[in-house]
């Protein structure tokens, strides 16, 4: 593989992080700060009849209790306390006090009464409402299936899960001089700004949202968080800063979550063993008014160049909080199902699962009919198989047994993830005194976006890295896109390139024919120019200026993966070894090899970390993570980190990461496609496929429990 063209270097914010000096939203010191605690609904569905706040007001230190009656009435699902209760744990009141202890004690003293209603807790409960959305079709899958020589059909289940970034959800709101400033960890500062303005009937111009450092997000912090306008109104009514940190259990009940989804997959192959037909029906758990699309048909049609595809998708509406996007929201569950099914088909055909996949190089997108901008999945498979030692794999199941009875299995699966891009508006200012400030959209959630910006900027311009300020996650600095779907790096990459080019042009004009020594700052000083500032905007392929307006308004502005001339996806192949302990059936994953095609790798360190983190997520998803609904009372049963088991270090074996590192020729100038999400896609299926290879048992649901292997 070609050497990575970008050097390894320290993450620019890591120093503060290891020193404990990084300030997250809940760490910001503010004079006169008040503390808040939320009171959750204790019924899963119904109407609030009364909220008695007197007890709380008697607690020493309690300043105010806000209930639904304090908020402007709004059409549609309110983000504020409401009298209609749609799920257990919904906010009923907010207690604001001088101290955290008083806020907690006050919250305990609030008494609400409800008129309860019958509720539907599970997607297979009576009363769950199925709602089909637009199908995704290409060619004639029905005919292709009818003509297939070999077919398989099976159904797969992916559970409800919660993101659980380590940082808890929190909001701190300040109302001063007619301006509202909100500090919180978010992936969408502009969206928060727009929606808080709507919820509280404010002019968006008086609202700023700041999210300089986010302690992990993974999709949880994309939408407006339920508590944000509530805390903001408290700050406005009281006239002092208010901070709320939601306890973990309240986060489980109010944050968005990955909905449970069901996947029925049928595959057909012709007499030559070529995959020719795909039928795939998906549905997922949805709240009564939730909007997260069941978009499961993103990746499966773009993997293997199959022309005939027939996909349906549906919501199943029940009484729960709104689900949302969680790392690789559609491709992770979809590829678990699809790549398990591909394994089942390869098995039925008696083919090696790597060789079977290699025989299906995709070049076009059957859905749009356009070419794929690049697809190096076969390079991923070949390199992964080489590093893993795949050629030593016996094709039969249960053929690798240790002397003590431990069953060993090797599995493979692939993933794909749409390459998205956001329009950007950015400002670059270079000063004669050595400072540089680059203001752009983007939220630093651990993926290393600041480091990427710094690296690109320093490659393009001779600026002083020690005095480089990167202003992101701040609506006051630049309109903020939703940093998700791995589009952050790609989008800001375009902004940096454009801004640097404009800056070079401005410098050239300023300096003219003169030859001046020193870096760009020295040159400015020499010509006695205090600073130069340029503003640029960039658009995704095929986008027009309307996208910039949407960006400014905090609305959805991103494009992809279908562009006018092409479709763009990132790819990955995972190779997994599992070991199944004979007496307890415990499954361990000692070894993984993951090779990604994300186009050009911009920051090798952060990229490898992203992939490793994604694989760990897949191990958690495949073997452990599930949030269980309590069907008797609604709400979640295992709503804490003791019982929602995210992987610990001891669960993780060796994860070897590699990159194809070939630039995508069409998608953007840098040639990179996005990585954070594709990293986890397919790895869960690789684990299930390895378990099948070890034991002969095909488990078609996540998490794969030891019980399933008895």
């Amino acid at each position, binding site marked *: 593989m070609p050497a990575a063209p970008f050097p390894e270097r320290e993450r620019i914010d890591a120093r503060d992080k290891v020193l404990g000096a*990084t300030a997250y939203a809940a760490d910001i010191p503010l004079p006169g700060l008040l503390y808040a605690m939320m009171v959750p609904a204790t019924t899963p569905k119904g109407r609030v009849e009364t909220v008695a706040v007197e007890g709380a007001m008697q607690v020493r230190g309690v300043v105010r209790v806000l209930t639904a009656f304090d908020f402007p009435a709004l059409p549609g699902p309110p983000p504020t306390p409401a009298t209609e209760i749609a799920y257990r744990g919904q906010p009923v009141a907010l207690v604001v006090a001088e101290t955290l202890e008083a806020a907690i004690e006050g919250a305990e003293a609030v008494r609400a009464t409800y008129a309860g209603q019958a509720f539907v807790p599970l997607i297979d409960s009576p009363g769950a409402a199925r709602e089909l959305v637009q199908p995704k079709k290409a060619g004639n899958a029905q005919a292709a299936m009818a003509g297939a020589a070999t077919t398989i059909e099976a159904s797969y289940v992916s559970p409800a899960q919660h993101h659980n970034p*380590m940082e808890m959800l929190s909001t701190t709101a300040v109302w001063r001089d007619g301006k509202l400033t909100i500090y919180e960890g978010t992936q969408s500062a502009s969206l928060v700004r727009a929606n808080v303005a709507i919820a509280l009937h404010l002019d968006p111009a008086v609202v700023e949202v700041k999210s300089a450092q986010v302690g992990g997000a993974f999709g949880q912090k994309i939408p407006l968080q339920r508590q944000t306008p509530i805390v903001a109104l408290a700050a406005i009514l009281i006239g002092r800063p208010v901070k709320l940190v939601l306890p973990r259990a309240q986060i489980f009940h109010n944050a968005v979550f990955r909905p449970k989804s069901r996947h029925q997959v049928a595959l057909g192959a012709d007499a030559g063993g070529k995959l020719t037909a795909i039928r795939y029906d998906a549905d997922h758990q949805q709240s009564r008014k939730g909007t997260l699309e069941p978009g499961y048909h993103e990746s499966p049609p773009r993997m293997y160049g199959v022309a005939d595809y027939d996909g349906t998708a549906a919501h199943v509406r029940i009484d729960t909080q709104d689900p949302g996007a969680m790392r690789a929201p559609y491709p992770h569950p979809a590829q678990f199902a699809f790549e398990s099914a591909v394994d089942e088909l390869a098995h039925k055909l008696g083919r090696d699962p790597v060789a079977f996949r290699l025989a299906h190089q995709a070049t076009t997108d059957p859905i749009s009919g356009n070419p794929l901008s690049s697809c190096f999945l076969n390079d991923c498979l070949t390199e992964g198989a080489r590093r893993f030692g795949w050629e030593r794999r016996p094709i039969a199941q249960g053929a690798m047994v240790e002397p*003590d009875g431990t069953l060993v299995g090797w599995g493979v699966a692939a993933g794909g993830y749409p390459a998205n891009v956001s329009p950007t508006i950015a400002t670059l200012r270079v000063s004669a005194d050595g400072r540089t400030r680059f203001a752009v959209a983007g939220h630093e959630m651990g*993926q290393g976006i600041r480091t990427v910006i710094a690296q690109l900027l320093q490659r393009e311009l001779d600026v002083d890295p020690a005095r480089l300020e990167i202003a992101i996650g701040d609506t006051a600095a630049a309109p903020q896109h939703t940093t998700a779907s791995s589009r952050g790096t790609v989008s800001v990459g375009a902004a940096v390139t454009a801004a640097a080019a404009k800056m070079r042009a401005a410098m050239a004009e300023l300096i003219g024919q003169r030859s001046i020594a020193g870096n760009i700052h020295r040159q400015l000083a020499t010509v006695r120019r205090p600073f130069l500032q340029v503003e640029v905007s960039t658009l995704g392929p095929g986008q027009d200026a309307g996208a910039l307006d949407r960006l400014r308004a905090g609305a959805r502005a991103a494009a992809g993966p279908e562009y006018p001339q092409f479709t763009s996806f990132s790819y990955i192949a995972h190779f997994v070894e599992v070991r199944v302990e004979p007496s307890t059936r415990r499954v361990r994953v000692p070894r993984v090899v993951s090779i990604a095609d994300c186009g050009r790798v911009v920051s090798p360190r*952060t990229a490898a970390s992203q992939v490793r983190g994604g694989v760990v997520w897949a191990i958690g998803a495949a073997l452990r993570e599930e949030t269980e609904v309590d069907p008797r009372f609604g709400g979640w*049963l295992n709503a804490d980190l003791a019982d929602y088991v995210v992987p610990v270090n001891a*669960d993780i074996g060796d994860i070897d990461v590699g990159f194809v590192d070939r630039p995508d020729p069409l998608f953007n100038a840098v040639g990179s496609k996005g990585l954070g999400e594709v990293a986890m896609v397919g790895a869960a299926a690789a684990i299930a496929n390895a378990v099948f290879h070890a034991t002969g048992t095909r488990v078609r649901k996540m998490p794969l429990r*030891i019980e399933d292997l008895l």
Partner: protein
Amino acid sequence: MRSSVRFIRRGRIVELSAAEARMTLLDWLRLRDAAVGTKEGCAEGDCGACTVILARMKQGRVVHEPVNACILLAGQADGAEVLTVEDLSPTGAVHHPVQDAMLRLHGSQCGFCTPGIVMSLAAMHQDAPRPVSRQAVCDQLAGNLCRCTGYRPIVEAALEACAAPQPEVPAARGVALTALRDEAAIFAGNDAAFFAAPRREAELFDLLARYPDALVVAGATDAGLWLTKALIAAPRVIWLARVEGLDRIERTRTALSIGATATVADAARELGSLAPDLAEVIRRFGSTQVRASATVGGNIANASPIGDLAPCLIALGATLELAAGNATRTLPLEDFFVAYKKQDRRPGEIVRRISVPLPDVAMQFRAFKITKRMDEDISAVLGAFAFQVDGRRIASARVAFGGMAGIPARARTTEQRLLGLDLDAPPTWPPLLDCLAAEFKPLSDHRASAEYRSLVARNLLHKALLEIAGAPLSSTRIVTHVEAAHAGE
């Protein structure tokens, strides 16, 4: 009598009022001390983001224990120096070796877990004998969750930092801690609301008699959760850990006796020396942070059906000593557990010590802890087995389980049936193994289903028998440094 809690913070002696002493140490640090480098990720001891170091004098030397500040009452820091991430390189110019390695090897992404991880590793860097193995690093990190990095860069950073020789403890620290020491009982507050830490048993019993409703805490790894999660109000708190002698660990010719307030960490060596499998159970008990606070007595007294030590100690034939005032009584450990959350404990009585007979050479002990994830996880099932082997036959058997009933319980019928079992005739075992199923009616919960529990219990007994009959230890068993150290004995 002292009327405030005292500890050292950044070179100064801090005195806490009763109200402050009952706050969690994390809240005190973040809200009162403006030390916001320490993070809150769960407030229940699970994530380690709140890890800080308590430096204390123990047996004449300074030890640095990482603890979860979120479930530790600030009063429990009495007599210690409280070190947080900000203190490792106060000027920011010269980094602590752990910070330096984390930085260079990219152990931090979103960074929210980082301060806690840095503190866990700094404790190890200071106190761990060299060389530091990968296994030891992994054990140290068991209580720190990271959702971003996939852990490997953190492990690499730890190994690199700990490759350097163990640093000297700053002399001033020992001097300051010694100067802080006193023999006084603590009573901060008044009748209505206090934090008390008696020094003598008599004082303790007086307090218990006077305030029967007070919350008694030892390590607070359970009780801390009642405060932060169940949000109970506990205006009166009695802390056991200052009671002199209550934490003593003694070994006689026939028994190991462990004082109730000995921490699991401090008892680990002696307990682990009884049997390698017990060492392994303790290695996987909670996390380094939890073990540094959790006490052996608390693990018994809380009467959890899924506590790890009870089934092991029951199988080993331990007895429990209870005391109230001048009255002391001793009973077999299994008799202490009466029914779910109900123990044979009288008002005002405390658990004083646990005595474990030393196993003889004919004794074979096996214990297996089954959890969803490898570390820091409450057991779904824990099986503990102690067999006396006479030739190739079982001469006596004690079989105990956690997670199979409302209390840690013996399988008495199975024990009877096992007598005389021929270790060389595995085909004769199945009826005996089946007998277990009839003895327990386990529950289904999100940790495991009833069927799984029953089946695994049977498999664990089978595995224990196979192993003592001479089958090789299964290679999926994680051989620990502790186990390896015992292998040659």
